[in-house]
């Protein structure tokens, strides 16, 4: 069986050859099996978001290869990859078009599978599907198809963005701290929705989080990053037996930099 995602020796240096040169990714390799749900932890600047940016094609790596479901996508354009890679950001305004209605936003996402009918409007069948999917979110959005997304709350917008990314099942879903800007109750709700969609559609998924306990409870693998490398790869029994205090200990050991700066970023709640 094909691996879903294979990263081979990925390096990325920002501002090379200047005093500001910063090695964001350093010979990083990672393999994901289909259906893997990997949580990614690490301090700020460890290279987590850079990793996502390289996978989604926002910029090219300096070295290394990226394969998705057996296909080399190292040099593929961002919008081409986006047809099979879904991505949700921390900033709740990034994933949706605020001046357009909920159904128009969903129709855009649905384009991936209906691209050939690009000169058609939203059909009754589309609407029926959108309503069903929205009803599953349990946020009462199914009756507000023609409301502008800009009128929704951050949590609702994030849920719509999640729906857009998964309306056509992606090969890979990248969640970049997608609940960090929400209040705790809403964050929990959005996480629940995420968990359900990922499980039901068997989506291969990576999630960056600063919340150590959800890093351990969600998904089946956890990786810890530092200075552009993977310093800890937890899975199976080792992961099941891992506790939050023990992981924080490990974090201190593995991380090269002064930990004081990072303590606040790794809450235990």
């Amino acid at each position: 069986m094909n691996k879903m995602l294979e990263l081979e020796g990925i390096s990325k240096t920002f501002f090379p050859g200047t005093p500001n040169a910063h090695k964001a990714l350093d010979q990083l390799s990672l393999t994901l099996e289909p259906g893997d749900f990997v949580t990614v932890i690490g301090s700020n600047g460890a290279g987590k978001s850079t990793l996502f940016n390289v996978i989604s094609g926002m910029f090219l790596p300096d070295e290394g290869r990226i394969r998705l479901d057996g296909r080399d996508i190292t040099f593929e354009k961002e919008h081409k990859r986006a047809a099979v890679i879904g991505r949700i950001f921390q900033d709740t305004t990034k994933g949706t078009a605020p001046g357009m209605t909920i159904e128009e936003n969903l129709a855009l996402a649905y384009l991936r599978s209906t691209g050939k009918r690009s000169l058609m409007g939203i059909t009754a069948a589309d609407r029926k599907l959108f309503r069903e999917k929205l009803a599953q979110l349990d946020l009462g959005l199914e009756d507000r198809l023609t409301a502008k997304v800009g009128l929704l709350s951050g949590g609702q917008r994030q849920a719509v963005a999640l729906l857009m990314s998964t309306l056509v099942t992606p090969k890979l879903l990248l969640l970049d701290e997608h609940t960090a800007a929400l209040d705790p109750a809403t964050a929990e709700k959005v996480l629940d929705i995420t968990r359900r969609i990922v499980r039901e559609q068997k989506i291969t998924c990576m999630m960056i989080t600063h919340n150590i306990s959800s890093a351990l409870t969600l998904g089946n693998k956890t990786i810890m990053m530092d200075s552009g490398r993977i310093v800890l790869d937890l899975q199976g029994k080792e992961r099941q037996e891992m506790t939050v205090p023990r992981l924080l200990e490990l974090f201190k050991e593995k991380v090269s930099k002064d930990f004081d700066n990072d303590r606040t970023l790794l809450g235990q709640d």
Partner: protein
Amino acid sequence: MNIILIGALELGLIYSIMALGLFVSYRMLDVADLTVDGSFTTGAAVCAVVSLTGHPLAGLMLSIPAGMAAGLVTSLLQTKMKVQPILAGILTQMALYSINLRIMGNKSNLSLLGKESVFTLTEGWLPQSMSRLAKLPVIVLMVAVICLLLAFFLKTKTGLSLRATGDNVEMVRSSSIDPHFTNALGLAIANGLVALSGAVLAQYQQYSDLNMGVGMVVIALASIIIGEVIVGRRNIPVHILAVVAGSILYRLFIALALRAASPSDLKAISAAIVALAISYPAIKEMIAVAKLKRKGRVTHE
């Protein structure tokens, strides 16, 4: 009906085709496209040259691809060459000045007096007693067809992609839409409409002039904003109607102002109308704040 009113209505509708073009680029795509001053004249020039050979309808039709080509050049400069959007438009506009001169055979104006036009072709539509209104049905028909096509297009999935590019380019970049394609499409459509507007105007006033495009961007923006203030922008069809209404109202203001002032004051009056329309929301807010202050609800700012 008053002849001034009819004239304002006709001109307003003709210029509304251009305003609808800017509605696509400025409002939908969120790009300030200054190609317009050039592509308006391009449309008129192409139309005049083709009309002189006796093909008035072909003149109108050919003006559209000419304008679209200009829009594509601006788009390529913006997207592939990374030239700033405003500068990209200015560059194309500058180049178009020479190109327009070439199209018109190195003459700064071309007369279409006595030549066939879309208006002479339809002269017999209305009885003799209403000849003053004869041009109106043709223009109304054209604008109506354009409005319908535009409203339909913006609801299609391609249209939605174009609007999303203007609404949230961050989202578009991380979705499967190619923002370079939607930018090219939007600017092509916009300048195609602008050129068509210039072409219709050339046949209406029976001449084309090298400088007829000057100031068109400002007039179009004023029309869009006047329309939005008075009609609103609840949804796409309303927004489109607002642009057409705004364009007609702008011409009415100008016509009325000209009755009181001399034609040499025209530019100053136009500028004043535009400034007023654009600052209307700010003025409204000032008045609202002043009212609140009087009621004593706002104690400090």
